[in-house]
C-alpha cells in the first residue's frame, strides 16, 4: 500500500472536516471501550494472563529462528509449503505465481493486514485476477475503494447511512433496492458473497497465529467468512508475518483468552479456526494445496533493536479503540496500513521514520494505549524513542527544532529565564486582565485556532515569592 503518512497534517485536516467520520468515531468511546473494561473485570485472572501472554511472546521472539524452523518442518510434513519472503514485492509475486499455478480467475479473501501491507489487491487486479473481500468490513471498503481504517474493524469510520448509500449505489447491478436496516444490509452482502466462495479458485486468509508445535495457522473471526474462504477453493494461501508464530497449542490458547476480550470485549471470538495442511485422505473437505507465505518486511531487523517489544503485538486494536487521537481523526489520517498507537510505532519501523515521523509525535502521551495493551507493549516509550531519532535526524521542521533549542537555552539559565518570564507575565497580564483570555495573539495561532488563551495573572510566582521572603526578613521573622 502506498503511504501518505508524510502528509499527516493535511490528512488530519481532511479527516476533521468529515462530519460522518466524527459521528462514527465518537461511538468508540461509549461502545468498544466500556466493552473491553467489562470483559476484563469479569475475568479475575485477566492481568495474570496478560503477564503470561507477554512471557510467551518474549520467549518466542528470543528463539524465533527455532520456532519458525519447527513450524516450517511441521507444515511440510503435512504436505503444505512455506515460502519465505523478505519484501512485499517477493510476497506479492509468490502469491501471484501460486494463483497462476491454480489457473485462478477469482480469489476470495479473508481479512488480512499483511495482504494490505503488501498491497495485494491492486497487484492481483493489475494481473487480471479478481480479489473478493469476504469479511463484511473489508467488503464494504473494497466497494468504497478505500483502505481499512482500523485493524479489526476496517469500516469503523463509516456510519450506517454511509454504508446504505454505498450499497445502494454499488448493488444496482444486482437490482437491489435501497436498504436502511443493518440486518438487511448484511443479508444483501451475504447473498452476493455466498456463490463466490464456491466459484473461487484460490482462498487467501491471514493468520492471527502460527503454531510451531502443530504447523497450524489460526484465524479468529466473527462472521465465518474465513472458514468458507479457506476450505472451499482448491488452494488455500495463508499470508502471515513471521512474528505470528507461537510455540504450542497451549500457548496460543493463553493468548486467545486475552485477545478477544481486549479487542471487542467478547470472551471469545465467534469462530476460532485452525487449519493444518491440505486435505488428508478421508477428509470431507478442505483445500488440495496449502501454502504459507511468510513475510519479513523489516521485522527481523526490529528483532535485534529497540523496537522488539512491538513484535509482541497481537493486533487486538485495544490501543486504537482507547486512543483519543485515533478517536478524533480516524485511521485514514495515519496514511498507511497500521493506525493508532501501534501504527505510530510500527509504521516508522516498517516504511522508515523519514516518511512517518509525524505519527509518533502526534500523541499527547496520555498513556491509555499502554494501560490497555494486553501484551504490555510500552507504546509511549517506543514513540518517544522514535521522537528522539527524528530529533537527532533533524526530521522535524527547523522552526520547531530551533524553538526547542532556544527554550532549552533559557530553561538552563535560571536568572535570564526568570527575568524574561516576569516580563512576559507582565505584558500579557496587563493586556489580558479585562477579558481574562486572549482570542488573538501573535505566535499563538495553533493554540488559538479553537480556544482562547487564558491570560496570566500579571506577575510570576518567583518574583512574588522573592518579594514576600524579603518582606518577611525585614519584619524579622
Amino acid at each position, binding site marked *: 500500500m502506498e503511504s501518505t503518512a508524510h502528509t499527516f*497534517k493535511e490528512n*488530519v*485536516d481532511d479527516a*476533521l472536516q468529515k462530519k460522518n467520520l466524527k459521528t462514527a468515531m465518537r461511538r468508540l*468511546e461509549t461502545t468498544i471501550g466500556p466493552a473491553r473494561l467489562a470483559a476484563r473485570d469479569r475475568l479475575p485472572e485477566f492481568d495474570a494472563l496478560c503477564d503470561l501472554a507477554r512471557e510467551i511472546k518474549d520467549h518466542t521472539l528470543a528463539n524465533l529462528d527455532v520456532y519458525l524452523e519447527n513450524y516450517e518442518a511441521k507444515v511440510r510434513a503435512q504436505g503444505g509449503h512455506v515460502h519465505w519472503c523478505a519484501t512485499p514485492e517477493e510476497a506479492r509475486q509468490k502469491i501471484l505465481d501460486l494463483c497462476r499455478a491454480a489457473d485462478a480467475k477469482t480469489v476470495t479473501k479473508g481479512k488480512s493486514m499483511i495482504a494490505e501491507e503488501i498491497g495485494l489487491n491492486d497487484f492481483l487486479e493489475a494481473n487480471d485476477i479478481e480479489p473478493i473481500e469476504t469479511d463484511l468490513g473489508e467488503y464494504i471498503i473494497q466497494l468504497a475503494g478505500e483502505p481499512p481504517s482500523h485493524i479489526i474493524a476496517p469500516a469503523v469510520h463509516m456510519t450506517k447511512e454511509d454504508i446504505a448509500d454505498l450499497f445502494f449505489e454499488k448493488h444496482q447491478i444486482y437490482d437491489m433496492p435501497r436498504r436502511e436496516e443493518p440486518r438487511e444490509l448484511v443479508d444483501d452482502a451475504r447473498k452476493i458473497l455466498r456463490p463466490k466462495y464456491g466459484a473461487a479458485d484460490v482462498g487467501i486468509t491471514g493468520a492471527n497465529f502460527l503454531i510451531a508445535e502443530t504447523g497450524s495457522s489460526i484465524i479468529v473471526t466473527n462472521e465465518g467468512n474465513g472458514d468458507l474462504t479457506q476450505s472451499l477453493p482448491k488452494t488455500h494461501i495463508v499470508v502471515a508475518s513471521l512474528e505470528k508464530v507461537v510455540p504450542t497449542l497451549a500457548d496460543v490458547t493463553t493468548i486467545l483468552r486475552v485477545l478477544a476480550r481486549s479487542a471487542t470485549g467478547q470472551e471469545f471470538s465467534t469462530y476460532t479456526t485452525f487449519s493444518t495442511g491440505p486435505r488428508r485422505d478421508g477428509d470431507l473437505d478442505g483445500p488440495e494445496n496449502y501454502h504459507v507465505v511468510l513475510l519479513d518486511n523489516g521485522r527481523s531487523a526490529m528483532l535485534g533493536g529497540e523496537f522488539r517489544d512491538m513484535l509482541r503485538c497481537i493486533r487486538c486494536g485495544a490501543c486504537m479503540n482507547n486512543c483519543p*487521537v485515533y478517536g*478524533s*481523526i480516524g485511521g485514514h489520517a495515519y496514511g498507511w496500513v497500521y493506525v493508532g498507537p501501534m501504527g505510530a510505532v510500527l509504521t516508522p519501523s516498517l516504511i522508515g521514520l523519514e516518511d512517518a515521523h509525524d505519527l509518533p*509525535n*502526534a*500523541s*499527547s*502521551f*496520555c*498513556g*491509555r494505549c499502554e*494501560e490497555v495493551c494486553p501484551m504490555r507493549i510500552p507504546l509511549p516509550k517506543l514513540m*518517544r524513542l*522514535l*521522537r*528522539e*531519532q*527524528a*530529533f537527532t535526524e533533524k526530521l*522535524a521542521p527547523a522552526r520547531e*527544532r530551533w524553538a*526547542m*533549542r532556544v*527554550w*532549552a537555552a533559557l*530553561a*538552563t539559565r*535560571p536568572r535570564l*529565564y526568570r527575568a524574561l*518570564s516576569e516580563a*512576559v*507575565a507582565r505584558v500579557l497580564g496587563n493586556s489580558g*486582565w*479585562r*477579558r*481574562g*483570555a486572549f*482570542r488573538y495573539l501573535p505566535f*499563538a495561532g*495553533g*493554540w488559538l*485556532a*479553537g*480556544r*482562547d*488563551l*487564558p*491570560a*496570566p*495573572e500579571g506577575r*510570576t*510566582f*518567583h518574583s*512574588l*515569592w522573592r518579594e514576600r521572603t524579603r518582606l518577611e526578613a525585614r519584619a524579622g521573622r
Partner: protein
Amino acid sequence: MSEVPVRVALFVTCLVDLFRPSVGFAAVQLLEQAGCRVDVPATQTCCGQPAYNAGDKADAQQIARQVIDAFDGYDYVVAPSGSCAGMIRNHYASLLKGDANYHERAMALANQTWELTAFLVDIMGVESVAAPFDGVVTYHDSCSSLREVGTRNQPRLLLNSMPGLRLEEAPSGEVCCGFGGTFSVKYSAISIEMVDRKATALTTTDPDAIVGADLGCLLNIAGRLKRTGKTIAVRHVAELLTGDVDAPAIGEGA
C-alpha cells in the same frame, strides 16, 4: 505534628510560575497548614518535559541535572502538578542512566517527589480542609496524575470534606483533554477536537466549578469553554482547598 517540621521544596512548575502564581501560594499554604516548612529553590525553571517529549534528549538531561541540583537536601519535593511530578518520578532516572554523577541522585529524587494532593493525603495524613465551597464541583483527572503518579482518590477525599461542596463525576473521566504540552500547538487541530469533547463531557454535570491538579489541562479546558461562550469557573484544586475563590477563575475577565 512532629517536633521537627517536614522540609518540603516546592516545585512551582513553569505554568504556575507564569500563568497563575496564586496556585503556588495556595500550595504553600496547604503545605504549611499540614505542618511542612516550605522552601522554593530559586534555580528551578521547568522539569524539562517539553524537551523530553520533543525527542531533545540532551537538553532534557541538562534540565534534569539542574533540577536535581536545585532540589538537593530536602525531605520531599512537591509539585502542584501530576505531570511535572511524574516527569521527575518516572523519567529522570532512565533519562540519566549511565550518568555516574546523577543517576543515583535521580533515583533518590524520584522517591521524594509527589503531586500536591497525593502528598497531603498519603504522606501528611491530611483528611479534610476547612474551607467551604457552595456548589457542584467536577474534578478533571489529568492523564499524568492518573497514570503516572496514581493521584485519583486523594483530591476527591479533600474536596468532599469541604462544607457545602458536592462532587459530581463527568463521563469519560479517564480520557485525555488534548493538552499534551507542545502537542497542543504542534498538532493543534487534533488537540482542539479532543478538548472540545472533554469540555462537552465536563459540562454534562452542570458544575459551578471544574477543578484539576494540572494547570496545562486547565488552561486548555478553560480556553475552550471561553471560546465556546460557556462561563463555568475553572480552577486549580489548590485554590478551592484554600478557599481562594474570590480572584477571577482561569480565563475569566475582571
